[in-house]
């Protein structure tokens, strides 16, 4: 798998004189690009600690909506400061977040804008589906804190397949869209800034660069971004459907499966207990059509549209998959469920010195756990009851005293009770598949 480096966290700010000799559209676009300073808390140490980072963004609406990367502004942001093109600073709030596309939507504080009578420009989207390899593009952003930096390059590949199961702060990314690959210089801090055509249309949101490579940058296409903006503005998140099929590219296996060229998607793996598993689908099956629409998953870059097709079905709806198994073809009805991340909800249990994360269905499947109960320890603070009792990162707390931990709430309630009235607590936890008991003492 390709490992890409999220382009965030640059610390120095240095204004750069604006470009001369450019189109009106391009000048307008420059006025819509912002610098974003984020302060957020991290919990991995078994306690809350503050960190800060810098990224870029682009204003997409008159009411001050700004599109940026999910890895620039996270759900734990406590302070978001936006520096407009005129160098005025305005605070903003997180509106929506989607790690799968690595996009986040923030909104400028309307009162502040009005009170200070600030002005900004709104960018215009271009058609990312029309981009061709070799087309000239520009990246605008805040690389290494260098505000308002413009770099130039071409579209190296308009449809690059890429996914990473921990690419955005430990969350999954990719999968549902292809990416634009460009050789325009993209550095840490460019994240969230736009990739634009010479006439100033936004065709992508710069997101990642290839680690230790020259000029291999990746951007989320505008066609995807526009769709996500709508969803985030409306719901704050994107709800997707899931059936539990892991496809593999058919590449040159058509002969073996006796398929017509450009037909079918190979199922490489089925998540245990998933809707596809329950419906009787098996690894090695070939999906020929979904709801009568033929699918073609010959090459990796053809897989995201298929994932997208499944993801955009309403949760709980029934999909009819036409499947070829051996010489036989038959239909399977699969009822979708809601897609969840392997990263569940997180919390800090201060009194025990532990950071925990709810075990999600996806995490449970990935780790072959019997079910999705329990909370996973993701941080331990030394010298606190959790660490002293012997708990460590990776343990899954399954029971507290006599209560089964089926939600984060159970543990939080126990910790609150402990904080109010410290008394020994018996904790059952699983490490790998081994069950151990621990006593947390005041």
């Amino acid at each position: 798998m390709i490992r890409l480096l999220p382009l965030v966290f640059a610390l120095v700010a240095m204004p750069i004189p604006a470009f001369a000799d450019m189109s009106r559209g391009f000048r307008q676009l420059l006025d819509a690009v912002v610098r974003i300073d984020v302060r957020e808390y991290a919990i991995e140490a078994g306690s809350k600690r503050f960190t800060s980072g810098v990224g870029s963004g682009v204003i997409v609406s008159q009411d001050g909506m700004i599109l940026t990367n999910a890895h620039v502004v996270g759900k734990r942001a406590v302070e978001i400061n936006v520096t407009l093109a005129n160098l005025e600073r305005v605070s903003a709030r997180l509106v929506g977040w989607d790690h799968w596309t690595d996009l986040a939507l923030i909104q400028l504080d309307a009162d502040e804008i009005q009170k200070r009578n600030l002005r900004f420009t709104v960018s215009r989207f271009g058609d990312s589906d029309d981009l061709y390899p070799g087309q000239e593009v520009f990246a605008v952003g805040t690389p290494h804190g260098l505000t308002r930096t413009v770099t130039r390059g071409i579209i190296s590949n308009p449809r690059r397949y890429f996914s990473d199961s921990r690419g955005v702060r430990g969350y999954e990314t990719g999968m549902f869209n292809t990416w634009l690959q460009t050789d325009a210089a993209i550095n840490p801090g460019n994240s969230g800034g736009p990739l634009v055509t010479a006439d100033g249309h936004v065709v992508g949101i710069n997101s990642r660069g290839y680690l230790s490579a020259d000029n291999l940058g990746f951007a989320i296409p505008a066609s995807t971004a526009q769709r996500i903006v709508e969803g985030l503005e409306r719901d704050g998140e994107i709800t997707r459907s899931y059936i539990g099929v892991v496809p593999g590219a058919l590449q040159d296996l058509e002969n073996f499966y006796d398929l017509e060229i450009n037909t079918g998607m190979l199922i490489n793996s089925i998540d245990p207990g998933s809707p596809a598993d329950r419906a009787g689908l098996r690894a090695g099956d070939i999906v020929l059509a979904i709801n009568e629409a033929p699918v073609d998953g010959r090459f990796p870059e053809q897989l995201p549209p298929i994932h997208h097709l499944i993801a955009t079905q309403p949760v709980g709806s029934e999909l009819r998959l036409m499947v070829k198994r051996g010489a036989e073809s038959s239909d399977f009805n699969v009822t979708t469920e809601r897609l969840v991340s392997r990263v569940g909800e997180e919390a800090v249990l201060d009194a025990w010195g532990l950071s925990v994360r709810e075990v999600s269905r996806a995490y449970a499947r990935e780790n072959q756990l019997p079910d999705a109960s329990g909370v996973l320890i993701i941080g331990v603070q030394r010298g606190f009851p959790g660490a002293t009792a012997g708990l460590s990162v990776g343990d899954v707390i399954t029971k507290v005293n006599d209560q089964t931990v089926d939600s984060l709430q159970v543990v939080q309630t126990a910790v609150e009770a402990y904080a109010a009235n410290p008394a020994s607590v018996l904790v059952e936890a699983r490490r790998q598949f081994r069950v151990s008991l621990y006593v947390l003492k005041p």
Partner: protein
Amino acid sequence: MKFRPLSLFAGLAAIIPAVSLSAAEPLAELLRERLASVVAVEITVALEIDRSVDTVNGIVVDREGTVILESGAINDRLTPDQLVEIRVYRADAPATDYATAEYLGRDIYTGWHFVRIAPEGRTGLRPITDFAGPNPPAEPGLADPLWGIGLRKKDEDFRPYFLMSRVSMVQPLPQLMAIMLEDTAGRGLPAFDLDGNFVGIGTSGFGESMLVYSGRSRGPVPSLFVNPEESSALRLAADVLPYLHRIPDDVYGRPLPWFGIDGIQPLDPEVAAYLGLDNGVGLVISDVLAQSPAEAGGLLPRDIIVELGSVPLPRLKPENVVTVFLQREIARQRPGDVLSVTVLRDGNRLELPITIGEAPKTPKEAERQYFEDLGLTIREFVYNDANDRRSDPTQLTGVVAHFVNSSSPVGVAGLQYDDWIQQIDGEPVTSFAQAVLLLEAVKSSGRPEVVLLVKRGGETSVLRVRLNGTGPTG
């Protein structure tokens, strides 16, 4: 290799005057006599594409030419029929002068491998029991001087050498062990007291923790140094002599007692106190295996074992030694024996008699076949394979990739050692025999490819294997 003649002799000069030698005979004479109980064993192993030769030390245990080798002497993955030749050499005899031996199997309780020297090679050998001393054997005391035998390599005709040190501590782990100040015996070779009485065997598994300072790292780097030749840990005679007769019935080590619990975790002393356990010792059962004696006897996951045979578990340190104690107690049983287990379940004590069973077919006993054209050995999928993969052990389907030549067609296609092959050419694999037929059919058909569905770490993937002679495989 660690051997320092100069420092060794210098060390002796320092030690011997300090020790009051009560022995009637000089140590050199005692050593010479006891060489009749030690041998070097050279084992030739046939692997898929090559052979390997290893030499280990052994101790003669009876007058039938039976020799014990320490548990690590033979890789557990190997089957008895892969041990194509076993040669036994005497200490100090020319390396051209050897006897052959046959493999008898590994005892589950002691971990020892047993081999038996051919009759013509037994002349002059003496069992270690000839030097056993008082019965029961006396436990050496702190600071007692003990000496042992080491053997050089084949190129030096397995010349014996002398080692000596003092007892630093004696501890049950749970076998009774003496930890010595210095290396006192070769691995798998005996140690004696000053009267020449057998006191223990040098065992593997002990190393020295050291901090290494180097220019490349900022601070000290902890390292473990293990001497592969000699040992400073002795398994004491009390845990050796009573078990020398435990020669398995067959080369697979059967009878193999089976209990059927997994993931046994010792209780932390704080937890034991919290649960009100008198002696502070308990073992949590993580899993009870399907169709096992433990399941039949009513044990459940999360039961806490507190007594065996109505006797509280011993208080051993560190706590995980208690886990080993239980495993060894089970290993000591024979199928059909009843072991009574007292568990704590939801605060109540339950005593459950468990009838020890006979272990299901082991990976070692599983059928296997090598396909040279593919560069692949497939092995029957057995009960333990299913358990290891958290799958249902009552449904044994597919085969295991037991050997993958990385540059062979299957290796290039991405197959890895220990992958679980579930389908061959789209055909679900239901048995080992069927898998063999399918792969043989591929071979005889002259087809350019074979498609495997394999499972690794809970995920499957479809691998296309291009067979040799059909164009580039890149």
